[in-house]
């Protein structure tokens, strides 16, 4: 194993990590807003990937071009998920945590079932795309272009999210509702509207990630499951409710995963992430940047 291989691994790991961060931030946003862990988050990713496939197949759009469209579609889907399902889950007076978990879990299973029914369990992929399979050589390191694009989109998305939260009225409404959902009605903020938009935003973000990942990952009904766990660990590692935590957590997860893959057989590469998570929460029970 040469220094070059290590650097190569770490570089791809970092890129993947930024993508993980993008997947995770939607989850962090929703949780920070309303204390709900979306157990269907992986399935949102799956839906986004299929949507991208759809755009590529029927509209002959390259995934990168389709990405904003997918994000837009996922935005609507996320808002609908809130209005149609989650809103009712939050009305529970007892066991609110469990109700949310299982209501969204039920949604996840239904989505998976629908995917199997309507799209078959076959593994699919996007046959040709602008960046698919290409690598960029930078100082002797070969960076896969789809992942690179994904990382750039992720950074852009985080920057955009930062601006949205800190410099727009909607962002302020989001923060206010997050702090005291009961009180915001007093200042004319419709809590339900903010929640629906929050879910939409969270889904849109994972939609962007899904569009990019469709370039280089197989698309099938259960694809969400494996990434979902990484997303949860990322959010928990960074600290629930912290957008920056999702960003940092993603990079850490990506790097740890890449490092683990260097020393352990590929099927065990997640062990590193799990160990790091347990170590971090042992020292900081609320994650790295969590306040909730």
């Amino acid at each position: 194993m040469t220094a070059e291989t290590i650097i190569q691994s770490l570089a791809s790991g970092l890129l993947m990590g930024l993508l993980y961060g993008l997947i995770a931030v939607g989850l962090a946003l929703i949780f920070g807003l309303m204390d709900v862990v979306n157990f269907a988050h992986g399935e949102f990713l799956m839906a986004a990937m299929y949507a991208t496939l759809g755009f590529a197949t029927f509209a002959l759009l390259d995934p990168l071009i389709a990405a904003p469209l997918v994000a837009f579609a996922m935005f609507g889907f996320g808002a609908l998920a809130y209005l149609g399902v989650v809103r009712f889950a939050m009305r529970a007076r007892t066991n609110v945590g469990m109700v949310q978990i299982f209501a969204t879990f039920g949604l996840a299973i239904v989505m998976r079932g629908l995917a199997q029914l309507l799209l078959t369990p076959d593994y699919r992929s996007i046959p040709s795309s602008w960046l698919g399979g290409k690598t960029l050589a930078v100082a002797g390191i070969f960076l896969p272009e789809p992942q690179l694009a994904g990382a750039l989109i992720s950074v852009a998305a985080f920057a955009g999210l930062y601006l949205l939260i800190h410099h727009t009225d909607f962002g302020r409404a989001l923060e206010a509702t997050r702090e005291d959902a009961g009180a915001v009605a007093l200042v004319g903020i419709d809590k339900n509207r903010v929640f629906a938009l929050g879910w939409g935003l969270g889904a849109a973000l994972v939609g962007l990630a899904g569009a990019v990942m469709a370039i280089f990952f197989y698309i099938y009904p259960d694809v969400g499951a494996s990434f979902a766990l990484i997303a949860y660990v990322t959010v928990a590692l960074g600290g629930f409710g912290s957008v920056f935590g999702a960003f940092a957590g993603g990079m850490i997860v990506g790097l740890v995963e890449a490092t683990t893959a260097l020393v352990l057989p590929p099927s065990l590469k997640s062990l590193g992430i799990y160990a790091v998570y347990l170590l971090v929460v042992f020292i900081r029970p609320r994650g790295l940047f969590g306040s909730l």
Partner: protein
Amino acid sequence: MDAASFASSRRRALLIAALLAVAAACLPLVVKDVYVLNILVLTLMYAALSQSWNILGGYCGQISLGHALYFGLGAYTTTLLFTKLGVVPWFGMVAGGAISATIALALGYPTFRLRGHYFAIATIVIAESAYLLFLNWDWAGAALGINVPVRADSWLLFQFRRSKLPFFYFALGLACVTWLVTWAFENSKWGYWWRAVKDNPEAAESLGVVVFHSKMAAAAVSAFFTAVGGAFYAQFVSYIDPESVMSFQFSLLMALPAVLGGIGTLWGPALGAAILIPLTELTRSYVGGGGKGIDLIVYGVLIMAIALARPEGLVGLFERRKRIETAR
């Protein structure tokens, strides 16, 4: 509600349980279809598993989504002891239970300081790690799993080829035992401490409850019986692999009946299992073939429906009348 009526409601629960157990024991007399019997065995097993999960998750409020760890440990301990060392599965069952309880206690140290979602994710991660390790552990069969050699029907070796009836009665017995354990704990100081810890750990501490010890006790009891269920399962299906006994899906499946039936209640897990398992199995056989996914849709809709319409669980349907009586 005064002391006398409370004691009588306890006796009533015991009586109802006894009657249900007897009724269940008589089922094989009328039900001869092997397929249906199979579903009944699984239902009873899940009732027992979910009842065990409920002790930690429902009563003590520590939602574990990694209980497949203990189930798998029970299954693997029994099977490995049997196939490698010829140890009788009954001993393996107890050993599996003891090992699981010990590991639950050991894991309690780092994890019980975590709250809510952080704890749940820690349980998932730990179980997944064990799953991955077993998947790569050649001595324990790795991904191919282990076959339990079944030679002849034997109670000693706890294996039956011709009729699955003994398994049915064992599963019934396990379901009864876990119910009884829950019933006993409900009226013990542990039961009170667990519920206090669930509702408000800070207040519990101010009343002299050592929160950490309470959680540990609940975890150990819960892990023990879950492992026994795993040991049973290994003998029942004669084949285990990480996918079937240690996966995340399985962890959720153990928690689900309790949540649907009524988390933290005495009857919830059994009620939830009685509805969920037959429904899942039936939809899977009638509709699920061919990877159509319809069984998943039905399953998912059912979970959402109950979670949204009856968050306190189906037990709530039976309890409403009682609540009005006592709130005088």
